[in-house]
Each structure stands twice: as structure tokens, then as C-alpha cells.
């Protein structure tokens, strides 16, 4: 009985937290949201709200949503995903207005930074989607990101061509996943173990090469230039976010669209998913399971590798040891939170990016809330969301299981 009411209960608890913590005992003062930047067509005025009042109003709205969903469950219905999404956005907004009480939050920087932090996660999660949808568990996203970051820096430095660096990142990611594929598919080694071993191997290898071989000539690739799309870039908020970015970010948007279309609308995708769900069924209609899996895993690795290039070519412009810092595992979490769906996984990755960026922006703005708490809060919310709201999460049926003929 309790299980059926899990979602309304979680929603109710969050609503109460908002009302009590942010509303009743919240901070005094106004919260200012700055939307426009100097380069925009026209200036949207700052958005000023009383912190406590906002939290109280939003908290009551949230409570109403929780009550409505409880009623829905009682009538035997299910709480829809869009209701949860609206709830989530409102809850985040309430948290923001509490956290910046008395200060000003530059929305553009907040979202821009979030997007930047999410880029490797999105690529990693997309690579994971391809790999797991075809039936191979990909723990090695971390290794693929790191390999991509390393080779893009080296190749771009040595050739002097940043785009050659991008290509090298994809190739490096593909090579790492090819090793995964060979061991997991051909030699039927446990996929999780191979993945973990690969991660450790890539960390060791790149760290060694970094300290033993790389010098300033081979590790100074520079950064990809920003490509501004005329006119569109001047739209307030959206312009700087979507139309004034480096090539990698445009590639990311294209990759999400292509992967989604290919997976669900093409023959290639249908066969790939069939292999990941029921390899024997695919085999009995003449689909080569091993070849399909090699293709899916390798392509996934190439995507993840491309994401790795963002660490070097897209942001700091040089490789440093273990610079991916566990982002591959976060990408894996985004993939699962996003239910193995490229678009949902992308949204999850963006959420994680937002969570990380929030802490640093609030630190700069000077929020009264301790930064460590802010750093933790989004992940806590995510944990609650995954455990309480995600419901029955089901991955590809054959992911992790090798296919042995006969």
C-alpha cells in the first residue's frame, strides 16, 4: 500500500521542506534574478522577488501538487512525468530564491556554466546509451572520456589543428571501447570488471604519459573558438546559451538529435535495440549479434571520447592528470536516471551540470548558505528523485549478458 503512495509522499515531504525551511524560517531580503546580458537585442529587467514570500507561495503550490497526485493515486491513476518535471522546476526555483536572498543571481552565467559542465556528461551518457542499448554494460565511460581528453590535447598540439584533436578524441574513445568490446563480446569476460579495469588502466596510462612524455609543446592545444550565430546570439538568456558556443557544444546538440532519431526511427536502431533486448530473437532473424554489438559499443566509445575533448579543447586548453575526476560515473548515473533514453539522459546530464554549477555561482554571488551544503543539496534531491520518483526503471533486458550461440 505504502509503495503505491511513494511518489505523493516524496512530493509532500519536499513541499513541506520548502515551506518550513525556505518559507517559515527562511532568510529575509529580496532575491534578484538577472536575465539579460550587455550584448542582447533588448534588456529584460531584473526579476526581484521577496525570498520568504516566494518560498511560501511556491511551497503551497508544491503541496497542492502533492495532494493532487495523492488523490490521483487513490483513484488508481499514475503521476505523469510532466507533473514531476513541473514540480521539480518549481522546487529548484524555490531553493534558488532562498539561497540568493539579499543577492543577485546572474541567470545567464548560471545556465551557461551548467551547460558547459554538462557537455562531457551528455556525450558520455549518449555513448553509454548506445553501448547498453546494444547489450553491453559500459562502466568504462570514465576511461573513454579521459582517453578522449588526453589524445585530443596531444594530437591538437602536435598537428596544430584543433579539429584533428577532436577527431583523435573520438578515435581514442572508440579504441578504449573496442577493448571493452573484444573482452566482453569475444572473450565473454564480465563486462563490469572489464569496464572498471579499463578505467584504472586509462588513468594510469595517461598519468604516466603526462608526467613522463608530455611537455609544453605537446600539451598546449589551445581552445576551440566560439562560433557566434548572427542575430540568434542576441536573444536574451537563450542567445548566449545556445548560439554563442564552441563547435563541441553544437556537435552535442546534433548528436542528441541524431542518436535519438537513429535509435527509434531507423532500421539500424531497431536492430541495435533488438540485440540488446533479446539477442537470440535477433539472431534467429539473421542479425549478426556480435557484429552489431561491436558496432554499437565502438560508436558509443567514439561519442564518449568526443565528450572527453571538451575537458581540454573546450575548456582549459591543456591536459592534466585525472582531469575527468569521476565525471564518467556521473554520466553513467545520468544514463540510468534518463532510463536509457538519449533525450531523458541528456536532461539528466543537464540537471547534474546545473547542480554542480549552482554551488560555484552561489559562492561567487555570496549566498548566506554554506557552499558545502549547496554543493550537496542537488545530489540529495537527485537521490530522492531517483529512489522515490523514477518508479520501475528497466534497462535493456540483455545488457550485461553475453550472447553464447547454441
Amino acid at each position, binding site marked *: 500500500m505504502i509503495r503505491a503512495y511513494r511518489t505523493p509522499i516524496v512530493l509532500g515531504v519536499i513541499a513541506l521542506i520548502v515551506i518550513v525551511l525556505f518559507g517559515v524560517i527562511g532568510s529575509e531580503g529580496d532575491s534578484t534574478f538577472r536575465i539579460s546580458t550587455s550584448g542582447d537585442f533588448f534588456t529584460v529587467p531584473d526579476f526581484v522577488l521577496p525570498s520568504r514570500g516566494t518560498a511560501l507561495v511556491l511551497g503551497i503550490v508544491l503541496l497542492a501538487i502533492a495532494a493532487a497526485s495523492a488523490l490521483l493515486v487513490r483513484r488508481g491513476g499514475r503521476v505523469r512525468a510532466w507533473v514531476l518535471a513541473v514540480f521539480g522546476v518549481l522546487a529548484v526555483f524555490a531553493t534558488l530564491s532562498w539561497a540568493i536572498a539579499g543577492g543577485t543571481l546572474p541567470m545567464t552565467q548560471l545556465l551557461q556554466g551548467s551547460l558547459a559542465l554538462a557537455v562531457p556528461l551528455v556525450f558520455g551518457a549518449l555513448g553509454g546509451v548506445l553501448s547498453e542499448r546494444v547489450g553491453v554494460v559500459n562502466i568504462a565511460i570514465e576511461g573513454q572520456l579521459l582517453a578522449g581528453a588526453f589524445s585530443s590535447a596531444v594530437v591538437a598540439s602536435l598537428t596544430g589543428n584543433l579539429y584533428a584533436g577532436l577527431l583523435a578524441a573520438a578515435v581514442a574513445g572508440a579504441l578504449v571501447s573496442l577493448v571493452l568490446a573484444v573482452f566482453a563480446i569475444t572473450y565473454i569476460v564480465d563486462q563490469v570488471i572489464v569496464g572498471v579495469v579499463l578505467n584504472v588502466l586509462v588513468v594510469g596510462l595517461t598519468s604516466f604519459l603526462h608526467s613522463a612524455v608530455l611537455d609544453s609543446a605537446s600539451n598546449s592545444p589551445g581552445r576551440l573558438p566560439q562560433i557566434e550565430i548572427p542575430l540568434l546570439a542576441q536573444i536574451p538568456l537563450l542567445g548566449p546559451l545556445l548560439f554563442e558556443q564552441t563547435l563541441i557544444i553544437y556537435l552535442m546538440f546534433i548528436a542528441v538529435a541524431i542518436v535519438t532519431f537513429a535509435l527509434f526511427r*531507423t532500421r539500424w536502431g531497431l536492430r541495435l535495440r533488438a540485440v540488446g533486448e533479446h539477442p537470440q530473437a535477433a539472431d534467429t532473424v539473421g542479425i549478426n549479434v556480435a557484429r552489431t554489438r561491436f558496432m554499437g559499443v565502438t560508436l558509443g566509445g567514439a561519442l564518449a571520447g568526443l565528450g572527453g575533448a571538451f575537458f581540454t579543447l573546450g575548456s582549459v586548453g591543456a591536459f592534466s592528470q585525472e582531469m575527468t575526476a569521476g565525471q564518467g560515473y556521473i554520466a553513467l548515473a545520468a544514463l540510468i536516471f534518463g532510463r536509457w533514453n538519449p533525450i531523458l539522459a541528456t536532461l539528466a546530464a543537464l540537471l547534474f551540470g546545473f547542480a554542480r554549477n549552482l554551488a560555484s555561482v552561489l559562492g561567487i554571488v555570496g549566498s548566506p548558505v554554506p557552499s558545502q551544503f549547496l554543493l550537496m543539496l542537488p545530489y540529495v534531491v537527485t537521490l530522492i528523485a531517483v529512489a522515490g520518483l523514477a518508479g520501475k526503471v528497466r534497462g535493456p533486458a540483455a545488457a550485461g549478458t553475453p550472447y553464447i550461440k547454441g
Partner: protein
Amino acid sequence: MQLELRGITKRFGGFTANDAIDVVVEPGQIHALLGENGAGKSTLMNVLYGLYRAEEGAILLDGVEQHFSGPGDAMRAGIGMVHQHFMLVPVFTVAENVMLGHEPTKGAGVLDLETARARVREISARFGFDLDPDARIEDLPVGVQQRVEIVKALSRDAKVLVFDEPTAVLTPQETDELIGIMRQLKEQGTSIVFISHKLREVRAVADVITVIRRGKVVGSAEPTASSQELASLMVGRAVELTVQKQTAKPGDVALSIRGLSARNEQGTVTLDGVDLDIHRGEILAIAGVQGNGQTELANAIIGLLGGLEGSISLEGRELIGRSVKQVLDAGVGFVPEDRSHDGIVKEFTIAENLILDRSDREPFASGLSLKLGTVREFAEQKSREYDVRSQGIETKVGRLSGGNQQKVVLARELSRPLKLFIASQPTRGLDVGSIQFVHEQIVATRDAGVPVLIVSTELDEVVALADRIAVMYQGRIVDVVAPDTSRERLGSLMAGVVA
């Protein structure tokens, strides 16, 4: 199209699964391959379908030798297969499953779903199937899933259609419908290979019967042959098709179930107000199509199912709320339906498996240590008593045949003093000899005065063993009837029709 298998030999290591098998299937003929589980029928069909490669022999279609390196080749040559375990992706729609592997596209690899849907509708209309191309496979009943398999094969213009044990998952009514479909296919010129171990169905539908035993063709028969003749041919010796038993002498009610209800994790009702009494010294068999609550009923009694409403009382003691261990100690013996998963630990030896239930107590343990001598003696004795054929009691159970594994389970469960004996699918996947042995043990248990509950989806077994038959449908006991009730009536009950 004429199909000829000539001298097919397939070996797995030292084991010869198919030994120089010759079969000719004439165009528009229903050709039954009859044989026990493990006789090599499925292996032969997997060779035909390109899943296995034969060491010797040839496959000829209309006299032309074929070389299949995979199922794709076999399909292109016009061979279709309705697999015993459906080869359908559960999360895909009907149309997606049917088109998989030969998808219509709008160019550039983009799926043309409209054409695929139309194809499904067209073929299913030809047979009056009424399939919804957009239904998800996992939401469809097994009988309908099987039709999807048939449509899938036909959508590739199969000229020879192989049905591998197609009736194992069907109700008697669905089986009759399937036989109708096979006749219809035959009229339209499709050659059919029908693999089965069920004599009744083979006799009902086949034009020619080829009997296979231990990988060899041992003879062929006309469909007019008697069940007795076919069975002897199949097993290689005269067999008793009926279970020898005296009339039951039922005593008092031992197990009494009242208003038992349960839901699964998704909140669907799996048991719906079950009332049932079982007397001492009788066999009550639950009949029903797989998935109508039988598994849940057995699990509920044994204590494997939580969230129960109602009561289960064994000789006046309530069982609900007790752990499995407490229920077993209360005198319940249990043969689970999934033997290799729940009945035994494959990696353990015969001896270890025989004392799994009492490994923590006298006489097998004292304090923290096992008394290995006692365990060995017990295992030797039980192995002899139950005729477990192995290389000794230290053999890992996973290496035994299904029949011998089941003997180990029976030996363990029957060697405690019992107040109730439950056996789910007690003979699933066993050869005729082992089936006979298991049935004898069950009847002997009854004759010793123990109440016995049998759950079986094999109607023949239910009818042969039961003193009373309870039919389950959608979590309810539809009716409790005598074992001499007609099959038609049992079939209707199994479909939930209460006349």
C-alpha cells in the same frame, strides 16, 4: 516445397544428439517428429534452421542441397520456425517484431512503419488472427504471441514452417485453434514440421509421424496408430500410460485455505479469494494455464509470498506470517516448479543437496560442524532408494540429467515426516521413465496418508494423478471437479468459462 534431411549427424563433444537422421517432408504435408525430451528433435530443427552446423549430412529443398551458415540463410531459402520459447522482443510492438531483420524502409534506412503495419494486418486477416500491429508483445497473452511468431515466419514467405513444441504453453482451446491454423496453412501449400512429445496432438494433426529416440529415427507411423504403439516406439519399451493407483481414502481436512488474496509488485491481483480444502490421503491437482496464480498459490503456502490476506491453516495452525523454514518444519514438503533454480544448488554435490533443509540440525550437524559420516550414509541410502544415477554422491547435481535432479529433490522433500506435500510441475522436462517414477512416489506419499497438492499445466498429468481437480483462472479457483470430467469441460474451466 519438399524438404529432405539426409543423414544428419550432430555431435556435442562425445555426445551424439542426431545420428544419421533421414526425414522427408512432402509439400503440403504435416509431418510430426515425435520423441521424448532430449531425444534430439530440437537439435535437428536447429540444424535445419542454421543455428547449429551438422557434422555430416545434407539439407535438400526440392532436391537442391542447401548450405546454411545462419538462420538468415535458412529464412531466405523459405524455412520459418515457430520457436518453443518465442523469439519475440517483449518491449517491441507486433509490427516491429514481424519486420525485424527484413525491415521495409523509406530509403536511407528510415523505417517504414506504415508498410510493416499493413503487412501484419494483411497476413493476420488471411488467418482471422485480428492482431493489433501496435500492441506491445509483453502485453499479449501467450496464445496471441504465438500467432505473432507465425505471422513473423509467414511475412518472410516461409514455405516450410517448423513448430517446435508449440502447444506447451497453450490452453486446450488454444491448442485446438492452433491445430486449425496448421491445417489451414497446409491447405495453402505450406509444408509443416510439427515437433511434439504429446501423443494426442500428434495423432490429431499429423499426416506422417517420424519417431526419434536417442538421436536416431526409430520408425515412422500412421496417425491411426494407437497411443500405446506410439509411446512404446518413442520410449523403446512397453510403457504404462496411466498411473496405477487405488481409489483414494480421504481422511479429515488437513490444509484449509480461506479467502487467500495476493497482489504482485505492480499491484495486479494474483490470488483472488482462494478457498480450498485438502484432505489427508488425497491428491488435489490444480489445473490451469501457466500464469493464473498457481505459482503464487504454492509460494503462498510455503511462505515465499508476502502481503497475503486470508488464512492458510495446516491442521489448525496458521501458516501465514511464518518463515519458509518454519513452514518446512511444520511438516510441509515442497517440490518447486523451477527445479534447477529453486529446487537444487547446481554447484553442490548430491549429498549436500540432500541435506539442504536440515543442514543445521541433528542428525546431520552438531553445534557448528556437519557430521560428514552421517551425511554420507544418508546420501548413499537415499541415492539407492530413489535410484539416482550418478558417479557417486560427491557428483555435482548440475551434472545430472533432469530426471535424476528431480529424484534428488523428491528424496530430500519426502525424507522428512510430512503433514503436507506440494509438488509444482513435478515432471516438467523429464523423460517417460522418470515421469513414471515421480508419479509412483507421489501416489505412494498419498497412500501413506499425506495430503498432496499438485500444480501442473500438463492436463494429462493432472487427470492421471488427481483425486480431485481444482481449476484456476486469473487467481481464482473456478471449480473443483472429479478427475473423470471431460477435457472439453476442463478446457472451458481453464479459460474461465463456468457453465
